[in-house]
């Protein structure tokens, strides 16, 4: 238990290897908000998690709970995990909010995969067929085209 810290509350906090390689300070558990002091040296845990009652220096990047079906706090959750600015784009992607893309940067129509709706989890689990809203619903309703969407609900923007 060096880089992943299993707190007593059942939550596992992931202390990413590069940041915590030579680290000395206090980390807050994302599950129960208790603060513990660590000391790492070249990757080895020198002083284990000792509970203290002070403000934390840093928050973990990610935490999940194996006992409750792996529910998790993703990056950037206020007060629980660190934000991650090195994101490619709009942070909403990583919180699972679906966004249907039909246009590229220039505003032209492209044929691409939309994001998954929230219920599917934090990552694109399975692609579903894309719907062209510009074609009429009678056409789509007539089952003429291969790839008529058979799974995944209609997603609103």
């Amino acid at each position, binding site marked *: 238990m060096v880089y992943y810290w299993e707190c007593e509350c059942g939550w596992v906090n992931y202390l990413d290897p*590069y940041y915590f*390689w*030579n680290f000395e300070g206090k980390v807050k558990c994302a599950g129960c908000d208790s603060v513990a002091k660590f000391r790492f040296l070249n990757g080895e845990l020198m002083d284990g998690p000792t509970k203290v009652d002070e403000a934390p220096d840093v928050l973990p990047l990610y935490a999940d709970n194996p006992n409750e079906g792996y529910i998790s706090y993703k990056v950037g959750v206020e007060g629980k995990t660190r934000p991650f*600015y*090195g*994101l*490619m*784009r*709009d*942070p909403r*992607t990583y919180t699972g909010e679906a966004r249907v893309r039909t246009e*590229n*940067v*220039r505003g*032209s*129509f*492209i*044929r*691409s*995969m939309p*994001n998954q709706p929230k219920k599917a989890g934090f*990552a*694109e689990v*399975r*692609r*579903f*067929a*894309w719907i062209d809203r510009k074609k009429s619903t009678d056409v789509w309703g007539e089952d003429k*085209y*291969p*790839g008529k*969407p058979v799974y995944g609900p209609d997603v609103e923007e």
Partner: protein
Amino acid sequence: MVESWSFNPPFDRNPETGEDLDKIPFEEYCRKVFDPSKTFEKPEALKGWRHVSSTMYILSPHVGATLAEYGAEVIKVEMPRLGDPMRHTSPFNEAYLWPETDHRPLTGTGFGFLHANVNKYFVTLDYHADEAKELYYDLIRISDSMAECYRPGTFFRWGIGYPQLKEVNPRLIYIWLGGFGNYGPRRYGGSYDILGQACGGLAAITGWHEDFGGHPAKHTNWIIDWYAGLTGLIGILAAAHYRKKTGEGTFIDLSQISCSTRATGYSFPLYGRFGVVRQRWGNWDTLLSVHGIIMAGKTDDPEHPNPQISVESRYVMVSAFQDEDFKELCYLIGRPDLWEKYSSFKERVKPEAQIEIYRALEEWASDKSRSEVVEAINNAGLIAVPVMSAKDIYDAEHFWERGTIRWVDDPLFGEVLTQNWHVKLSETPPRTKWVWRPIGSDNIRIYHELMGYSMSKLKELWEKGVI
């Protein structure tokens, strides 16, 4: 009569307007000669060359893609139905493109496949089948070169290795690309790009120094794959030149780790003669000072929703290593004492000096935004450029007017922004015609129209699962 740019060109006269090309300023001359809008009017360098690409991932398809950009006809052979595994790779699993009329889940292709497969024709062939060998021989008989990336000995077992193909087509240039090479103790190691960086030496010299707490940094994307593919292409073209004299093809064994090792600069002579092992030195340069990347205080657009622009775009590269330039820089940032202390080149380039100088530079820049820093240094007559992100490249005019990036209107996939014209040639420029095609979309075009198999035979092969 309008003469063309290429055939029988008068070197000193613009063929369209008759204007004298000798007298105009050099930059205008370059613009006219390298005009990106005329790309498709000019001939292709490698027209008539046919290349068979039995490849996967990035390393080996890139050879074919560059050949295709220069005008060769490249036929990419993939496994039926599955295709190249790179089709199913995309950054953060987000960016996939579908053809307009086909929305079935598995026909999308990820962005990882982009750019290593431009201008190619896609056929499928299952090498394990019995008929595949004869099909492949027929394909090889009409080709000039061939690339493959399977483990050493695999093609030989299937009957299509170099010793066999040499008999079928003695003019064939056969290139094998991979990680560790075709022979040697570790010849069966996999060939990942990141492995090339790790084992080849580039990881040992890239990244922040250990003493500052740094770690070796991976070059973005799959740089070694791409660059090694290019080296392989040099081998093919040189062999083509040789073949013109003697009519013999050849076998090239390209290890991408060797390419990575080749690019390490002075590390190996230093080690061999003096036993000194070169370390990482971050964003600064070991040979020149000042010649590195500093961080400014603010970004240009802190309100932008994308954190890459609002937080990260604030690095500037400053280059002032000659004495006069360094003096000007010291006076600009208000530290003439640095100039007094480090007025000789040799003094400046020492590590302690570099640390002090760059710290002073960053202090000066800590209250300015990126463009202010660049402007201030450029106005003083020195050289500074911002570290540009993809958005900066899109916004800058320079690359658009030079034709480096353009919106390719792909017949199947719509508009894709891609790199178009990397090296400028005045008579036979390389070009991007289309981006990629679905698996096996050119089966008919190649097998039936080019090689002359009958449609009934193709149907038979399809049913057996050979194509």
